[in-house]
Structures are given as C-alpha cells and as structure tokens.
C-alpha cells in the first residue's frame, strides 16, 4: 500500500464494455500444488488453502495432486452426464422463457461442476440449502425433469402450487430445502438444521450455497458465526462467479485476499477451489464432509468460477462487462475439462459425447412435452385458486376463510 492521503475509494472491475479483457496476470495456484491436510486440522491453520487454489485437473486435463478423489470412470461419466443434462435443461428453459412459457429463468452455465460434483460427493441423506443457481444438485440427485419443469411453468402439477418464482425449487424427499428469493438467508438456517442433526445424534451433513455478492449480507456472517460457536456440521459454499448481477466481485470482497479467507476469522476451515474442475470440487467437498461428520465443524469453500451467461432473463450482461470476458476465462469450461480428462483416460470419446447430448436433449424434450400437458402459467391449468389461501398456517383462520369467500373461490 502506498497511498498517503485518505480518499473516497470505490472498487472498480478491471474491464468494462469496450475494454479488451485480459486475465494473463491472474496469479492462480496450479492444479496439484495444494496440500491436502487431515480434515480435522484446526480451522485457522488452513490459511494456505484459503489463499491458494485447490485444483486437480491440470492444463493437460490430467488428474494430479493430493486432492484427486480418484473416482472411477463410471462415476466421472455419471458426473459428466449430469452436467450435460443440467446445461441442456437450462438452455431449453431459457428458450421457453423467451417464448413466454414461464415468467423468469436463471441459468447455471459454466457452474455445473459446482453443484453436480458436490451432490455426488455428499450422501443423499445430507441436507442441501441452495441458492437459485444449483439446479445441478437436483439433476444429480435424480429429481424428475418433469417435476422440475412443472414448477418452472407453475402449472397444476407444480409441487409448490404456483407460489414461487421459477427455479425457486423445494424438494423435501430429496433433502433439498425451499429456495428463498432473499439472498443469504439460508446460511444461518443451514446451521440450525445442522445443529438439529447433531443434537439428534445423526451424522447428516448440511451444505449451503450462496454467491460472491451475497457474502456481503449479514446472514453470511450470521451463518459462519453460529457455526463457529456451535461447531456445526455444515459446508458453506461461496460460488464466486465474479459477478453479482452488474457488480463485480470486488464490491463485496473489498480488501479481502479471497472469499475463502473470510472463513479464517471465524476459525473455520477455509478452502479456495477451482469451481470449473469437477474433480477438485468433488475432492474438496468430500474433505469438508468428512471434517463435518467427524465433529470438526464447518468449512467455508470458495468455488472460483465465472458466470458465463446473464444473471437471469432480466438483464443484459453486455451492458456492464465485455462480451468476451467469459470466453477467455482462464479456468475453462467444467464440462469440456472433465470430458477431455475422460478422453485422455480412454474412457470417453467425441462420438459418445455427441450421443450423450442427443440423448439428454431428447430427454428434456420429452419431459417438457409431458410437463406442458399439465398446463402452463399462461394458459393454465394452475393449482386451484383457493389453494393460495392454504399453508399460510397449518389451518386457515377466520380471516383467510373469509378472504377466500370474498374472492369467491
């Protein structure tokens, strides 16, 4: 630091529309370099992991280093397949939104490994408190596409009865908590759930996800603080996709060296992970889950990635960042990287990949046909109108009964 006078300072991103983006001096730790300590290491001792970058897939798409989860080819193919399906599902939903079939949509383009690898590294009985950009968790846990779509188009089969904006899923059988539209609220709630599991003597782990921008919220602190006090078995994932709508990560990161480093102050294990590296996400999640299950408490995991498309169907990213930024993003694409790794192992090839894409596309098309047969937001049928007065309380009181009558439904 070399300034000599106090001046008002607002962080600004390196590149704006019109600039030529260039990440060549982004200094990232190389795949394989990070050491993998015992999962019961003291949280504050994870400093190097919080400042570095846990990576497994190197630039030749080979798996290197201590964090390699050594998955079987089948498991990796399964991961690849979930990621491809997630991407195709997203693409189709976006198109349908453009056609007016649903009110709103949010893609996870470029971030598929973050949710799919985590879901596969956790047990199905582990509890998930996601944000709106982890649809891969549902895909990997085998939720039916038709059910996901029925929710997105708010039709008569929407398991949320049309009450939520699209992508704000809830799926209890899948141990997937109801997604909030309010950023960050799930972090301290996840701790409460995890504490409950510990109180009941269960070895269930709870994992939650928020974005880089959301780390600014008080609930980010509230979650970490609670987990630090009660040593709760929880994994806090911070998906650093560089952007929060139009605001670059510096607005919430400030002077912090990394988002992972924010966990150190709470004495929590803190890891920074290449979020576009399926194997790294898997390995790190496994480590954090083991730590939690063994009583070591919480881990903060920054997943370093890039939001490759718009924030949602409501914004145009070329208004605030260079169009080419995503293309030159140095950590590449998670699907492409796992695919090349499998090809390198002789466990995959371009033809099989194309076949997979074709198969998944067909799946999505078929599912949508079925979903649409249960109605759409625009043309109905929806959940019965009177259902909007239900579930406010366990039983509607006289006010709700009267209001329902007023509406004549």
């Amino acid at each position, binding site marked *: 630091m070399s300034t000599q006078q106090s001046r008002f300072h607002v962080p600004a991103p390196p590149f704006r529309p019109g600039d030529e983006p260039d990440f060549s001096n982004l200094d990232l730790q190389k795949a394989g370099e990070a050491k993998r300590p015992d999962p019961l290491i003291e949280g504050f001792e994870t400093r190097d992991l919080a400042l570095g970058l846990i990576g497994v897939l190197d630039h030749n798409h080979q798996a290197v280093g201590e964090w390699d989860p050594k998955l079987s080819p089948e498991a990796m193919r399964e991961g690849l397949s979930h990621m491809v399906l997630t991407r195709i599902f997203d693409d189709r939903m976006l198109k349908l939104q453009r056609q007016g079939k649903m009110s709103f949509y949010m893609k996870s383009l470029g971030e598929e490994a973050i949710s799919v690898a985590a879901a596969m590294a956790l047990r199905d009985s582990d509890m998930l408190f996601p944000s709106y950009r982890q649809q891969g968790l549902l895909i990997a846990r085998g939720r039916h596409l038709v059910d996901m779509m029925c929710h997105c188009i708010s039709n008569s089969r929407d398991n*949320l009865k049309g009450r*939520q904006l699209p992508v704000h899923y*809830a799926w209890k059988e899948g141990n997937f908590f109801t997604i909030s539209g309010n950023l960050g609220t799930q972090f301290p709630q996840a701790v409460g759930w*995890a504490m409950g599991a510990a*109180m009941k003597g269960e070895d269930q782990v709870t994992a939650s996800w928020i974005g880089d921008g959301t780390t600014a919220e008080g609930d980010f602190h509230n979650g970490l603080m609670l987990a630090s006090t009660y040593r709760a078995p929880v994994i806090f994932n911070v998906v650093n996709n560089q952007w929060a709508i139009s605001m670059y990560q510096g607005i919430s990161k400030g002077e912090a060296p990394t988002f992972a480093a924010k966990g150190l102050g709470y004495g929590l294990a803190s890891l920074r992970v290449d979020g576009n590296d399926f194997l790294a996400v898997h390995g790190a999640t496994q480590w954090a889950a083991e730590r939690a299950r063994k009583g070591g408490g919480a881990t903060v995991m920054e997943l370093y990635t890039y939001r490759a498309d718009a924030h949602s169907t409501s914004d145009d990213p070329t208004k605030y960042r260079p169009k080419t930024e995503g293309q030159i993003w140095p950590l590449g694409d998670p699907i492409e990287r796992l695919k090349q790794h499998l090809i390198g192992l002789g466990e995959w090839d371009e033809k099989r990949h194309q076949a997979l894409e074709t198969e998944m596309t067909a799946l999505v098309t078929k599912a949508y046909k079925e979903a649409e047969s249960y109605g759409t937001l625009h043309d109905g049928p929806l959940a019965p109108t009177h259902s909007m007065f239900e*579930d406010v*309380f366990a039983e509607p009181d*006289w006010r709700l009964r009267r209001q329902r009558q007023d509406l004549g439904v």
Partner: protein
Amino acid sequence: MPTKNMIQALNSAMDVVLDRDDDVVIFGEDAGYFGGVFGATQGLQKKYGLDRVFDAPINEAAIVAMAIGMSAKGLRPVAEIQFADYIFPGFDQVVSELSRIRYRSAGQFTTPVTIRTPCGGGIRGGQTHSMSPEAFFTHIPGVKVVMPSNPYDAKGLLIASVESDDPVIFFEPKRIYNGPFNGVPDAPLTSWATHPKGEVPDEHYTVPLGKAEIVRAGSELTIVTYGTLVHVAQSAAEKAGIDAEIIDLRTIVPYDMETIAASVNKTGRVIVAHEAPRTSGFGAELIAQIQEECFYALEAPVARITGWDTPYPHAHEWAYFPGQERFIRTMKTVMEA
C-alpha cells in the same frame, strides 16, 4: 393451588414442554447458565442439560434463523429475544422466512418456532427497553402473535404456542412480570399471589390460541386491549364507576373477532387500547374490523388509547404510558359522545 408470578409461570411452562417433548430446545442471550436477564429460564439448563437449554450469541437474526433451521429439521425451538426492542435485526428472518416457509414449500417444510420476548414500558427502560412492537408482526401473513396479561394465561398460552405447528411471536409485558399494575405511576407494587390468575398449576395445560377472554363483564362500553393495559383498564373502570366490558385479547393474531363483535353489538361504545404508538398500531386494525362488522350498533366513534407517535422517552415515561387517568378521561368522553 400454587401461586406463581409471570416469570415463574413462564418458567413452569418451559419446564413442562422440555419434560414432555425431547424436541423442545431453548436458547437466547443469557438464557442458558444465567437463566435469562429476567430469570425466565432459570434452572432449566441445570435440569435438562446444555444440549436442551443454552446461551446464544448476541445476534437476533442468527437466533431466529437458527430456530428456523432447527424447526424445519423437526425440533421445537423456543428462542428468547432479550427485549422486544432488539428483535428487529431478526425481522427479515421473520418476515421473509419464518412466516413463509410452509407457504412457499407448499407444506413440505414447517417452522414451529416460538419466539418469546419481553415488551412494554413502565420500568424506566428508556426508548430501547420499552417498545411494544406487536403491530409490526400482525401485518406478516403466517405468524401468530400472542400477549398474555397474567401468570395463568402466560403458562397456558406459552405451552399452546410451543405445541402449535405455526410460528408464534410471544410477547411478555415485563411491567407485570411481578404483579398486576393499575396504571398509576406511584402505586405500590401488588403481587400476583393476591390475584386469581396468579394461581397456576404445576402441570401441563393450555390456553387456546385465538380465544379472547372477557375479564370484566359490562354493559355500557367495550374495552378491547391486551397485556399490561388489561389491568389498567380494569382499575380505571372500577375507579370511574363505568360498567365497562373488558376484553383481554390474549392472542392478537388471529384475534377473536367473534367475542369482540358480540360485546360491541351489546354495548355500542368501544375503546381499543395499546401501549404502542398510535399510527398503524394494532388498535387501528381492531377499529377497522369493528366498524365493518358492527357499524350499525356503534353509538359513538371507537376511541383509541395508545402510546404517542414518538419513541418511548425515559424521563417522561409516565407521560407516554397510557395510565389510569388517560383511560378514565377517554372512557368518559366515549360515554358522553
């Protein structure tokens, strides 16, 4: 029958639910080892262990959120917010989360949380230990709001709240923790031991949510109120010699409109009273509904006795608090209107 003050009654309620249901957990700032700054949880950690009754960090948002997560997992948390004035850091978790999780998940997840918090003035607490913020919570679809006025109800309503599958915000009028209060600033303290509602069984019982109680039958005037002011209203009616019917709401949401309407249709004159500021206080809601349902029975405008639209001032506490005198004055005005 044993007598208890309100703190003892609340303590007994928690003792009962802790004992009956392993899923009940209790926490709050100073609520563990120390037993709470008012002593409501005293002895419970010792009896039930650190796993069931424990201290929470000073963060009301985190306290509510932790309760939400635990309740969704299947526990029945009873969280204490040390003073109602300090509930606002947790307001977002109440408005956007606690109240809506059943709704937005279409019943997949539920949040049977009880939040206990002492409210109200009259103890020289100044503007940050005197608020009555119940009205804010009555505007949130999906939470129930309760405020008892005596030890018997306090215990019965608290047990009912914990056993309810809905989230409940449970306000405790701290001025009457140790005895009823007639609203005369210098009046000597009276004890609950001399009040019929100070008789509180040790066992389990409930007072149903949503049911008001007519604490004084009368024919000339209806007073609808809750909490500390129930006692002020009673003392004022006696003193003024006006045959007022006094309704103690007990549950503020959902309020017992049936009981209110029956009384208003009988008396034709109404006062609603609360300690909170006037503008958009819960009295406004009561009036709106009363005039809608009982318009043709009303013989005079419904009057409001409330706190002023200012923060609760420390030195002028008694000029702020709606005491006996103000009740009597308003009762006379309404009778003469």
